């Protein structure tokens, strides 16, 4: 059967043992489990490794390929650095939940069939909800329930699709599915819900900022990126993904521009960045799929770095809002510099990981002569610098002097941020090793003088736009309604309206019945009541007359 180590098992084991153990043993277990997983991931050879039978279907819980190893690697790496960031500050159950969540992500990466994929998919849904709940307080509880509802709904839709495919084709193999059946569309919709594609995109920006400062670091990494892997495996080149990706890109930018909550800005920029990947999967060429995979890899690193930087700020100041922050560079230089490196990477500045990976997607659009897509992606790159690249560091670390003088990050948080920041720059300067790991052979030179000039102009002039439009960018104490308004306000209001309508109808019906009853009762009282025709006491004469009449009737009837 299994003659080697299933990688996700180390994280599951670590989560359980870490929960039981105490003190430094617990910390050691939490730190070592992701590393053991990472080692396990690199022991998985190509092809299907383990097969077993379940309900007559062949289950392949472990299937290796370069693409799958790439995603599993970054998930395990992320679990390790995230744990390093969190292990001294987070509650043990948050770490346990985060590890089970990461185990789900690694499990999905190696799933060889749709049933295994679904099981790990749900494992992620459950334990990511627990991570959201670890934010504590009423808001996190409510946000967690909304988050779980959307993901369970997504899970059901995915399940409908998977069962349809099982019944109609008899195969549960993970392979490219043509989008010509109801089942395929159900699977696609189920996956797209996890990608945070519209219209159900709001779960991400609703839940992540309500988690703990450490929890949001884990949340930023796994759900959307496993969904990207699923899209690459199941729907490469599905044309519909290009417009969906573009909508996500611009939705993320515009919503982030309006946002005041620091971590919600970053949450919207996840949607924006994942939009680039969705778009790339839709383009579907080898270059585009390489771009999607490479960008997912780089994105997990710089996005986690940004959430770490924001997390330290929230942890140290207790403040979430741009309008209450500012000027923190004075006392938090490490957090500020790491945050700026993450911000430059997400903006795909030359010499950062964003440049060497995201530009592959633009290049793929160019090679396919998709001019509209290419120019929209270029505009979006400018927009990313605007909404995340400058906005995040500017409002948190510079802007005005908020008067806050928090201490810089604790040593483990600093170490985690420095590792991630170094990775952003290493992948930007030496992209070769990452290109080696991509699913298709890479024939791409990221640094061509003309292209660097193009991007520098694009980005720096976006920076100019930011500072010239600064009065328009000032944050106010407001939130911006998103689609979650539909289920947080419209649906309850509709329900309340229905209840009120039913109440009114019931009142009328009750009144009508009571009125009828009263009227009917009144009539009966007229006849049978103490003063009614039949109820009142009669005079002797009248009674004798009636008795005589009845007797006469009886005698007559008897003799007939």
């Amino acid at each position, binding site marked *: 059967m299994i003659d080697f180590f299933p990688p996700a098992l180390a994280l599951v084991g670590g989560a359980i043992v870490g929960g039981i153990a105490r003190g430094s043993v617990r910390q050691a277990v939490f730190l070592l489990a992701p590393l053991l997983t990472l080692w396990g991931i690199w022991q998985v050879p190509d092809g299907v490794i383990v097969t077993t039978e379940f309900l007559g279907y062949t289950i392949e819980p472990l299937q290796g390929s370069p693409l799958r190893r790439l995603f599993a690697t970054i998930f395990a790496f992320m679990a390790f650095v995230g744990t390093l960031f969190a292990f001294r500050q987070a509650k043990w159950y948050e770490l346990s939940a985060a590890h089970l969540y990461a185990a789900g992500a690694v499990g999905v990466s190696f799933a060889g069939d749709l049933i295994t994929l679904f099981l790990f998919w749900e494992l992620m849904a459950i334990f990511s909800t627990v991570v959201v709940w670890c934010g504590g307080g009423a808001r996190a509880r409510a946000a967690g329930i909304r988050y779980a509802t959307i993901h369970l709904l997504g899970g059901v839709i995915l399940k409908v699709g998977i069962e349809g495919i099982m019944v109609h084709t008899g195969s549960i193999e993970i392979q490219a599915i043509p989008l010509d059946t109801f089942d395929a569309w159900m699977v696609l919709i189920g996956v797209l819900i996890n990608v945070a594609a519209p219209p159900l995109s709001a779960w991400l920006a609703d839940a992540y900022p309500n988690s703990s400062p450490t929890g949001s670091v884990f949340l930023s990494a796994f759900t959307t990126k496993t969904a990207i892997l699923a899209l690459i495996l199941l729907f490469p080149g599905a044309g519909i993904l290009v417009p969906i990706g573009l909508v996500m890109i*611009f939705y993320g*930018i*515009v919503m982030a*521009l*309006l946002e*005041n909550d620091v971590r919600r800005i970053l949450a919207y920029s996840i949607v924006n960045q994942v939009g680039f990947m969705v778009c790339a999967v839709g383009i579907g060429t080898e270059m585009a799929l390489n771009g999607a995979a490479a960008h997912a890899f780089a994105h997990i690193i710089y996005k986690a770095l940004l959430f770490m930087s924001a997390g330290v700020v929230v942890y140290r100041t207790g403040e979430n*809002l741009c309008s209450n922050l500012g*000027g923190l*560079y*004075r006392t938090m230089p490490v957090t500020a510099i790491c945050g700026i490196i993450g911000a430059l990477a997400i903006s795909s500045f030359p010499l950062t990981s964003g440049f060497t990976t995201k530009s592959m997607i633009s290049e793929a659009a*160019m090679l396919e002569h998709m*001019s509209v897509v*290419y*120019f929209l992606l*270029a*505009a979006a*790159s*400018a*927009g990313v610098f*605007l909404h995340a690249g400058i906005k995040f560091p500017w409002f948190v670390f*510079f802007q*005005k*002097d908020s*008067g806050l003088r928090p201490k810089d990050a604790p040593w483990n948080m600093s170490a985690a941020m420095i590792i991630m920041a170094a990775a952003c720059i290493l992948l930007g300067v030496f992209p070769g090793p990452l290109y080696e790991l991509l699913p298709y052979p890479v024939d791409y030179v990221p640094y061509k*003088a*003309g*292209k*660097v*000039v*193009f*991007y*520098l*102009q*694009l*980005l*720096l*002039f*976006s*920076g*100019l*736009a*930011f500072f010239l*439009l600064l009065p*328009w*960018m000032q944050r*106010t*104490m*407001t*939130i*911006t*309604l*998103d689609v979650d308004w539909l289920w*947080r*306000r419209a649906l309850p209001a509709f329900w309340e309206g229905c209840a009120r309508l039913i109440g009114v109808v019931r009142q009328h019906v009750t009144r009508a019945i009571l009125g009828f009853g009263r009227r009917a009762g009144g009539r009966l009282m007229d006849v049978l009541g103490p003063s009614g025709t039949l109820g009142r006491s009669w005079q002797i004469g009248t009674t004798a007359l009636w008795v005589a009449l009845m007797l006469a009737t009886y005698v007559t009837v008897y003799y007939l």
Partner: protein
Amino acid sequence: MSRPDDDHWLSRPTTVRKLWWAFAVLLALTVLVQIVFPVDGHFGADGWFGFAAVFGFGACVIMVFFAKALGMLLKRPDDYYDD
């Protein structure tokens, strides 16, 4: 808006002015350097002189104005969802 005890070099007005100048020079350089390293535009327009500068700036202005307009419709006080 700095506190009296705050004399960090980055927050001094003279530094800020110098930074603006440096930024302006940098902006000019990134455009001028296109003379030496031409951008090979795949679609024609993207190879024009200073195209990316104008395009990036314009795109940002449009996005900010669009966001502002949308904000007028969709902004609510931040305790909107608190019951």
